[in-house]
């Protein structure tokens, strides 16, 4: 569903990614783990087009998408829930969710009626968002903002979802809740690429995992295989 080949990208003169390759099969949850600064978030940004890759290929559902605008890639079926959540603070929770489905909805009026089923699904998944539907997103707690960011990405009914550091800055109880949600989405058959600091939790939910080191993939395998790899245990699971 998503294939990344030999991806190079960076900021200005400094190259952060030096040939990252990975594959996400349909219906699989794939974890991308690694130390701070290894290039996990940069990989996500280069895939979704927020950052233009300097070299390499990104194939989404059979189409080459590297070099396209982020908005174009999003319309082709990729939803990226970015690091730091990036909800639209001044807009209401419901408006944030509706914008998640932007490309499918009528642009002037009647958009809410068209999105009703999707909204209900998100509210069922995150009942707290329903209570706060009219509140501006900037007033939500960090955990609620994370749920909103996930909900907003799901509203697009994406072919592939990228989820970057959903546990960042959240209390342990909330982190557990986030992972419960991810497990539920997995049961529903979502195709997900997950970047996580908490390697252990990420490997518990993943079907396959990649370990990044200094801009490229160092080790890959099923969670069981990585769990037996001494280097991975020492660096990330210890």
């Amino acid at each position, binding site marked *: 569903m998503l294939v990344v080949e030999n991806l190079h990208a960076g900021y200005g003169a400094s190259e952060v990614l030096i040939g990252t390759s990975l594959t996400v099969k349909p219906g699989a949850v794939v974890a991308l783990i690694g130390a701070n600064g290894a290039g996990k978030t940069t990989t996500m940004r280069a895939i979704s087009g927020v950052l233009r890759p300097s070299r390499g290929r990104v194939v989404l559902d059979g189409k080459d998408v590297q070099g396209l605008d982020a908005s174009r890639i999003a*319309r082709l079926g990729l939803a990226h829930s970015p690091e730091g959540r990036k909800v639209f603070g001044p807009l209401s929770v419901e408006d944030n969710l509706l914008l998640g489905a932007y490309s499918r909805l009528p642009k002037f009026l009647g958009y809410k009626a068209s999105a009703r089923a999707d909204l209900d699904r998100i509210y069922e998944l995150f009942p707290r968002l329903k209570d706060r539907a009219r509140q501006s997103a900037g007033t939500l707690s960090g955990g609620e903002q994370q749920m909103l960011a996930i909900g907003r990405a799901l509203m697009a009914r994406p072919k592939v979802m990228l989820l970057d550091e959903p546990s960042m800055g959240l209390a342990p109880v909330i982190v557990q809740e986030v992972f419960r949600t991810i497990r539920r989405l997995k049961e529903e058959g979502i195709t997900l690429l997950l970047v996580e600091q908490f390697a252990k939790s990420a490997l518990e939910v993943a079907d396959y995992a990649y370990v990044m080191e200094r801009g490229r993939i160092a080790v890959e395998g099923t969670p069981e295989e990585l769990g037996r790899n001494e280097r991975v245990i020492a660096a990330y699971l210890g």
Partner: protein
Amino acid sequence: MNPSIIGQMAVSGALMGLVYALIAYGFQLTYATSKSINFGQGELVMVSAFFSLTLTNLGLPYWLMVPGGLLFGALMGLAIERAGIRLALEQKSEGWILLSIIMGLFLFSAAENIWGRDDRPFPTPISADPIRVLGVDITRLELSVAVGVFAIMGLIELFKRRTLLGKAFEAVSADRDAAELMGISATRTVMLSYALSGAVAALAGILVSPITTVGPTMASALILKAFSVAVVAGLDSGFGVVLIGMALGALESLASFYLGSGWREAPGLSLLILALAVRPTGVFGKAVIRKV
């Protein structure tokens, strides 16, 4: 001092001030989406007014001339975005400042060549007969300024709050990258904001010209005041520009009446300096709060 004269001057001034507010509102529209403004906005007001005058002289009725003028303004806004602003923004440079000034100068010379250097009257079917409201004489012409300004600002605010495209506009203002991730094209949204800003500038020209006449130099007089209003009110409050615009218009008219017309520009410039010294984000500007 006669209180009824003060009232009269203040009200006429405040109504004129709404024109400054409308031009300042045009700055806010493009600043919201792209953090850039068109420094040639005054020239945009002026050429749109000239174009509308030409439409009128061709025999177009008022109700057809207005949308024609607005459309022209919107197209000019788009042209300025495409030919100048975008080139700078794509390189993350502040070059849009200079580019928009240059395009303004270009429009100024073009107007002089096409329509001449003289100020010309702008015929309108709206009568200049005064109506008495609470002891103050207001002409229908002045009233048309208020109606026009509130109508277009109201429509644009309604568009931003009620339509999905308008919400996308707000999303790009809040976080451009995140909006792109929703499939919203930031480039197109910036284009839309420049088109709206151009239409708003054209309307300002159409509303003010019957009162002030049309001429190539009208740009510089208007733009300085609109700029003062935008800076004093801040670049994100539509309500703020209306309030500050009316206050500035009233002050100006009182200053020129009591101190002499040479002092007409003084209130605007003093306010501008004061605002930059005391509150650079503007009276109604929001200090940015970020949650991490």
